[in-house]
């Protein structure tokens, strides 16, 4: 025989082994030669997989904040150093790496994450380790809701904020019969709850809700149900590559011409991956690099951030860059002001402190649930950008105050017990 023997049984075993290997690539390699007294911040981001784009941009934001502080001499005289780990968009891997960062690398705090499932996992682990965790990019309500912890803060908007910031204005524009395409995991379910609450208040109806698995490539089976449901608005709740696939296919099926489309949030990363003819609708926006409504009037901090980031990374910053920057800048500010890295003291130093940053107005991490209370925006998409700037895809139309779109303190206190020790 020239060839080795391969039968069906060994094929199944091998294919299975291959899949298993795909899910559990060697966790980490030890690092050597790090500065002894650097102030280490652990950064967990999904550098590989579907959220690699947002992960890269969040990291760029973190890096800019770290560099800005280092330029000013560091924090408490110590150089800020980011220790990055790829959490692979996997809650299990993230938990393991969070432990590694704290126990082995001795980081003083954990930051990062994109997917809500991962955020919740890191939140739990960091709580058991007694380490501060700043969730910059996982949106699910639970992070600052029923799974809240004293040591966990969240920068990006909660799903409740996203749905309430967009729900009322979408209903006003497009009516109250909604068809939803929802990602089937923590984030999607949280959005669903939020929109149901909005519709309950204004007396609308969900005429279809398709739960799609994360990583769905073909949406045709879901899209063909839209016509029969006769909605006035199709709400697309999926994100990342799923968003790109879904909108592209809606365009192919001619649905973008037939129905109004919108959603709680769209990020620039997947939007740039869409052909112009599939860029359509009204969406929630968490920050934008080119609008007075998002950056504020004469906000030098913001315009400098946009200019430097664009120069450094060769493209305009997205909301993800903003999350990374704001998160680390606030954490380091609290450390510098409180002159400590003690987690409890730091947490107290972050709570309810109003600050100005690279967005319009002031904001604060709410004491009762540790959610960053900052405005949220709604934008209409400009498919081809503006003359001279092909990246300029958002025409920001509305600005919503955080208190108007997040659950009240009274409601939050019913589910969130921070549990300070």
């Amino acid at each position: 025989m020239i060839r080795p023997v391969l039968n069906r049984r060994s094929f199944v075993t091998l294919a299975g082994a291959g899949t298993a290997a795909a899910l559990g690539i060697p966790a980490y390699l030890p690092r050597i030669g790090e500065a002894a007294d650097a102030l280490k911040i652990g950064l967990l981001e999904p550098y590989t997989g579907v959220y690699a784009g947002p992960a890269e941009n969040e990291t760029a934001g973190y890096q800019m904040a770290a560099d800005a502080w280092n330029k000013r001499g560091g924090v408490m005289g110590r150089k800020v150093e980011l220790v990055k780990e790829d959490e692979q968009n996997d809650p299990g891997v993230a938990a393991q790496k969070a432990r590694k960062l704290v126990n082995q690398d001795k980081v003083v705090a954990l930051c990062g994450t994109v997917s809500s499932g991962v955020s919740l996992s890191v939140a739990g682990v960091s709580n058991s380790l007694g380490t501060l965790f700043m969730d910059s990019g996982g949106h699910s309500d639970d992070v600052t809701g029923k799974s809240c912890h004293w040591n966990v803060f969240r920068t990006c908007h909660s799903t409740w904020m996203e749905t309430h910031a967009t729900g009322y204005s979408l209903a006003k524009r497009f009516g109250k019969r909604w068809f939803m395409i929802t990602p089937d995991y923590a984030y999607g379910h949280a959005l669903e709850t939020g929109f149901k609450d909005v519709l309950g208040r204004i007396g609308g109806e969900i005429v279809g809700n398709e739960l799609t698995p994360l990583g769905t490539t073909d949406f045709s089976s879901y899209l063909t149900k839209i016509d029969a449901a006769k909605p006035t608005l199709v709400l697309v709740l999926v994100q990342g590559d799923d968003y790109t696939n879904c909108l592209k296919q809606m365009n192919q099926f001619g649905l973008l011409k037939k129905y109004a489309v919108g959603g709680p949030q769209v990020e620039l990363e997947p939007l740039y991956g869409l052909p112009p003819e599939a860029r359509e609708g009204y969406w929630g926006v968490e920050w934008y690099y080119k609008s007075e409504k998002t950056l504020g009037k004469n906000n030098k901090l913001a315009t400098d951030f946009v200019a430097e980031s664009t120069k450094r990374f060769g493209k305009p910053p997205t909301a993800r860059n903003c999350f990374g920057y704001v998160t680390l800048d606030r954490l380091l500010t609290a450390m510098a002001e409180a002159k400590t890295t003690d987690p409890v003291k730091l947490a107290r130093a972050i709570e309810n402190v109003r600050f100005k940053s690279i967005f319009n107005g002031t904001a604060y991490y709410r004491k009762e649930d540790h959610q960053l209370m900052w405005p949220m925006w709604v934008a209409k998409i400009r498919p081809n950008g503006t003359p001279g700037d092909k990246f300029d895809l958002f025409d920001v139309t509305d600005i919503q105050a955080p208190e108007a779109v997040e659950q009240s303190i009274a409601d939050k206190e019913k589910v969130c017990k921070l549990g300070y020790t």
Partner: protein
Amino acid sequence: MIEHLGPQLFNGLVLGAFYAIVAIGLSLIMNLTGTINMAHGSFMTLAGYVAFTIVSRGMPFWVALIVAPLIAVVVGVIVERTLVRPLYKREPFYSLLMTFGLSLIAEEAYRLIWGPNGVPFSGPKELSGAVSLGFMTFPTFRLFIVAVLVIAMIALAVFLTRTRFGLRLRAAVQDTEMIAALGTNTQVLYMINFGLGIFLAGIAGVLAAGMLGLSPTSGNQLLMPAFVTVIIGGMGSLFGSIVGGVLIGMAISMTTLFIPAASEVSMYILMAAVLLVRPRGLFGEEGIFG
């Protein structure tokens, strides 16, 4: 519910044709050399990105549809000559691990070259609309995809059954030693066969990039269903891959209609059911792998 049945069957068919063409490429390579090509999806992605680059340089989609798979074939043949070939005489898991590693490297390479985010790529303007089929409106581009895939499958069948080379290929699958003893250069046979498999992946890759999204991970997302297709259809049978692909496509679209939450697992349930009744798959030939 019932009014969705027709459209869903049709959706399933398109999806199935995709899985089938990828599975046939996998099968070709596996049948002849016992190589389980875990990097098959990466070649799809490569063809997609090359097509994107060609189109963004101002050339028409049609050029990309032919040229991009051919470039993938060139890369594929180089990979076969340098990396896969030395492993032919070893246990299958050597080439499985090697190609798996290759797929990880490829994914990162695409990320470095074309960026971590998806890139905008769509089918040609001429096929951008939707046509009415009576029971539903269906995107023209998807109909075109089905046509291309069916033509590719027929062409392959003719090639394998009506040409001398196809005959040798099929004979080599049965008994490589004998074919070699009769004077056929089996190394060249392996190389062309590998290239053929990659060519099919390349075509599927360009079409998928136009229909779905195009990002560093997009090809690999279609790989697992293709493997399941091979198992359901039966190893060694190209016809089985077609049937397997269509069955999986149907299973996914039908479960989406009736039990949406189970759409993801439906193909694995189907695989388990088929293996229980027919352990070698629907059209698998016993002993084809020795």
